[in-house]
């Protein structure tokens, strides 16, 4: 899509119409499936970005595999919490809404990997999905971690993959603010969110004990 039609696509419709956004995502997925995320999504951007870039489709794929672990963990966590039915009020609402978002993220990243998605790990959440107090604590940790994991990969991604990841990371940030507010913690503790690199995220994931070896 050239710059002109990109602008037209953004400005030519009412931004308050949800079906348009669904169309956008469907188109994104179609193109990702057809041509690979990096190539299809932002050919125009890639062509114009002449700065030093070490990003590549293989780097994008590696980052996507990493993102998929985080998204699957989050999706499984909320699915189990919803199934257990121990949450009440707005915490239950949070888990339902966010769980649905994470399932969409898993589907999106899986599709972007075009059949090369690694096998899903097995998870064990203990009382984090049965005790509301533990759930809230774990949800804060997982949402802050997911956000920091995406932010930490931003400079590794091709512009096209970054554009796709940016659509997810701000949703993770909204989740983080929501659950932090419910937990009585500052929803936005810093003026700039601190990124975590892959090793830091993997270490944090290991510390949770949620991923079975």
């Amino acid at each position, binding site marked *: 899509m050239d710059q002109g039609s990109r602008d037209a696509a953004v*400005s030519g419709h009412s931004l308050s119409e949800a079906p348009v956004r669904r169309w956008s995502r469907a188109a994104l997925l179609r193109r990702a499936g057809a041509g690979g995320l990096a190539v299809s999504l932002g050919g125009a951007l890639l062509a114009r970005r002449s700065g030093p870039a070490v990003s590549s489709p293989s780097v994008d794929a590696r980052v996507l595999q990493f993102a998929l672990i985080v998204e699957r963990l989050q999706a499984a966590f909320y699915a189990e919490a919803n199934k257990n039915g121990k949450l009440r009020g707005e915490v239950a609402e949070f888990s339902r809404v966010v769980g649905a978002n994470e399932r969409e993220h898993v589907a999106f990243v899986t599709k972007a990997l075009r059949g090369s998605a690694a096998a899903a790990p097995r998870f064990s959440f203990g009382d984090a999905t049965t005790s509301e107090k533990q759930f809230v604590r774990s949800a804060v940790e997982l949402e802050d971690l997911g956000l920091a994991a995406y932010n930490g990969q931003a400079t590794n991604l091709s512009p096209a993959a970054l554009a796709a990841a940016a659509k997810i*990371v701000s949703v993770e*940030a*909204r989740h983080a603010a929501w659950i932090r507010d419910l937990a009585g913690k500052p929803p*936005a*503790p810093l003026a700039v969110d601190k*990124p975590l690199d892959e090793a830091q995220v993997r270490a944090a994931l290991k510390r949770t004990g949620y991923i079975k070896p």
Partner: protein
Amino acid sequence: MTLTDPLPDLRWVDIDVDGALAETEAAAAPWTRADFLRGGLGALLGSLAVPALAGAASKPDRGDVAILNYALTLEELQAAFYTETEQANALKGETKVQARVVGGHERAHVKAFRDVLGSKAGKQPSFDFRGVTENEDDFRRTAVAFEDLAVAAYKAQAPAIRSKAYLAAAIGIHSVEARHAGWIRRLAGRSPVNTAFDEPISATRVRAIVAKTNFVTSSPKTGTKKGSPRFTG
């Protein structure tokens, strides 16, 4: 609570606010200004923001300067809004805390962009918020619109930023704007999250939305075509 809220639009008078959560609006946040200054601002100084921006090896190229100036203007708009709100002193409870905390963030963003742009920074526009800083309902509606808009605006520009240092900083600010958006939406009785994927909004569209508010009464000198971001996402 509806999950199909309209996307941000600063014509806030047209926004239909779902009041389902309004009755259960949270009491004042349990953390205090002292906590914020200790944990928030203190941590900011040691965080990515200013070092990443100030420590960039080379001066920003022309494309990045345009994007940074665009971001600066959006941040100035937000910072002025929250600062005026604090001065008007019409908020209470957690909304008051939100305005203070978020205002601090937006002012820190302004300073970071001004520092890195130096003499290339655009002149600060003048603003007239037309009374929306003077009562809680108008404040919340406007803040929701501003924060959702900022998220979409950063998202559109990020892939076009050439410098890795500026990109890292912009991405770290982008997610903070999304935290702000989630927070104020909850306080406004709206779902903190609209959909599983937040869409970008181009600079052209953002400018049109901002222009409709009539909040900006004088434009910065760099608001020419030459000074516009080349990528409008």
